[in-house]
């Protein structure tokens, strides 16, 4: 994507959120993400540009129904069709998701753990991340045996780790830089 297109996509996203930010929920954001993942592989909107108007409307309806996209996004799609910028739709959705989470002070956190966590443990780690980041979080848990033991909580821009793998890594770096010898 060209730099100018990415700027345009951001502007559309900002304008959309200005109008409809309070209509959206986290579920809507999740649905948008499913759509983004689909677009990455299918490039469907590229092909939508070339079909007839009627067919285009039918296809868009199907997509909205399939991904349960929020109805306000239909206005955005119509505007993009009018301006012949439908190809930007996936990028705009991506920007909407990012900007929405930022404006609502929400971060998506993946909790990597060496061993499965029970509900109480998971909540403890979530609370810790909320306390340290001062943000609301949306989390999911993944098992990562390479940690050996411990936990790693990672969002797009933030990281907290307390694992044996991290300690070994730190030790090897210190030894490499002769900080201990």
């Amino acid at each position, binding site marked *: 994507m060209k730099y100018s297109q*990415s700027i345009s996509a951001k502007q559309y996203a900002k304008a959309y959120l200005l109008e409809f930010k309070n209509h959206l929920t986290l579920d809507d954001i999740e649905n948008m993400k499913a759509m983004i993942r689909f677009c990455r592989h299918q490039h469907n909107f590229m092909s939508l540009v070339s079909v007839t108007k009627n067919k285009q409307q039918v296809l868009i309806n199907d997509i909205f129904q399939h991904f349960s996209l929020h109805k306000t996004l239909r206005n955005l799609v119509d505007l993009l069709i009018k301006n012949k910028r439908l190809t930007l739709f996936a990028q705009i959705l991506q920007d909407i998701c990012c900007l929405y989470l930022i404006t609502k002070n929400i971060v998506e956190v993946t909790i990597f753990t060496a061993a499965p966590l029970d509900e109480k443990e998971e909540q403890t780690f979530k609370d810790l991340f909320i306390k340290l980041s001062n943000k609301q979080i949306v989390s999911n848990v993944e098992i990562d045996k390479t940690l050996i033991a411990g936990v790693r909580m990672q969002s797009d821009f933030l*990281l907290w780790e307390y694992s044996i793998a991290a*300690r*070994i*890594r*730190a030790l090897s*770096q210190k030894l490499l*830089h*002769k900080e201990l010898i």
Partner: protein
Amino acid sequence: MSINDLELVSLLQKELQNKPHQKLDEIGIVVQIGDGICKVYGLINAIYGELVIFEGGNKGIILNMSEDFVSIFVLSQSISITEGEIVKRTGEAFKIAVGNAMLGRVINALGKPIDGLGDIATTEYRFVEQDCPSIVDRTPISQPLQTGILAIDALVPIGKGQRELIVGNRNTGKTALAIDIILNQKGKDVICIYVSIGQRQGNLARLVNQLEEHNALEYTVVMSADSSEAVLNQYLAPYAGTTIAEYFMHQGKDVLIIYDDLLNHAIAYREMSLLMRRSPGREAYPGDVFYLHSRLLERSACLKQGGSITSLPIVQIQEDDITAYIPTNLISITDGQLFLDAQLFKQGIRPAISVELSVSRVGGAAQTMAVKKMSKSLRLELAQYNELISFAQFGTELDEISQKHLNRGAIAVEILKQAQFLHYTFVDEAIILFMLRQNMLDSIPLKEIAFCVQKSTSYIQSIYPEIYQAIEISKDITDTISERLKTALLEFIPLMKVEN
């Protein structure tokens, strides 16, 4: 140094006892790597010039920031960097170790020793990029920096805290001149720092040997970012060298720093800028290439509370073209330039300093009175000589006065010739210039003049030490001293004729 299993286990146990962090690390993710530069997504609060740490252990400096990515140049990439690797902020700019233990050592741009003499015991770290001293902290240049080279001390004097550019074609003796100036600082309480940028390793080894042979390494720090090193190191080297110089300056010491050469520095920065996709300007240099050098050279100063940094940046030109982009930038930044002429060099006039094109804008105020008095009309005489010599080449018949100017000019050129590693004290210089001023050398054959002036200074020093000391103490040639010196030298000249 090896480490056994038991030690490793105890180190790991100690590491595991560390408590978890009570703060989150700000991170980014490597999305592209190549040519020593990384594009990283994230690091949203990072600042320009910040040091970052890669998860694999490498370190880098943020040197470009765009809306979605930051560009990071990697410092000494010891471990490979992979796409998707996490990069953490440190919240600090790049620092270098400084200390007195650096004297006599050869280090790289990161401050690590490369002379095989082991680690350097330093305890203090300073930021490589620093603000230059403010106007309030500075004082006008008033102390001379003795170079020991007559042509410089008499015609283009350099003061402590001055920035004097050395400019010339390749093989015109730029580095040799710089080494000579370093060697002359022995016993003068001046610390020297030589920063080699983009030079051949062989040249640097030769330079270090010369400094060692003349016992000059003990008060010198040699910083090397040779041509085989990453461009980032070549870019950082002059700033790191200046940081070390500032450490000494803030202790009240006088420092001489030589950047050899800043054209290579500009080329390294051009390479970095092009890799960062910055718009190329004239000769493909980025728009801020002037600022690159101005912010470096503005750090040279003479401080009110004592201490100074005198800088001698070197820049190589091609085909005597002094109007090239980087040389003109540097000429406008510095307080004067020493132009080394390839033609003069070929004619055997060494140091090949062109009197017409060399200038010192502030050094005159710092010149020793004795030398200043004696060299008053020297520049004019040399200018007249150079003008007349071109007429003489056409076979034009010259009148008696012109012929006299020519002869006098030829003698002046002869006394300004100086072999490498031969240094004069300011008293020597004053005596030599006195002889020229008093027309005492007119009867000496041109070939013998260099020998004669050398002998004359040692003659005065050994036979009339009181005159020598009087000049040394008063730093002036008063009327009384002048009379006595004249008498002494009039005794000496016939001796030279007999010897011939």
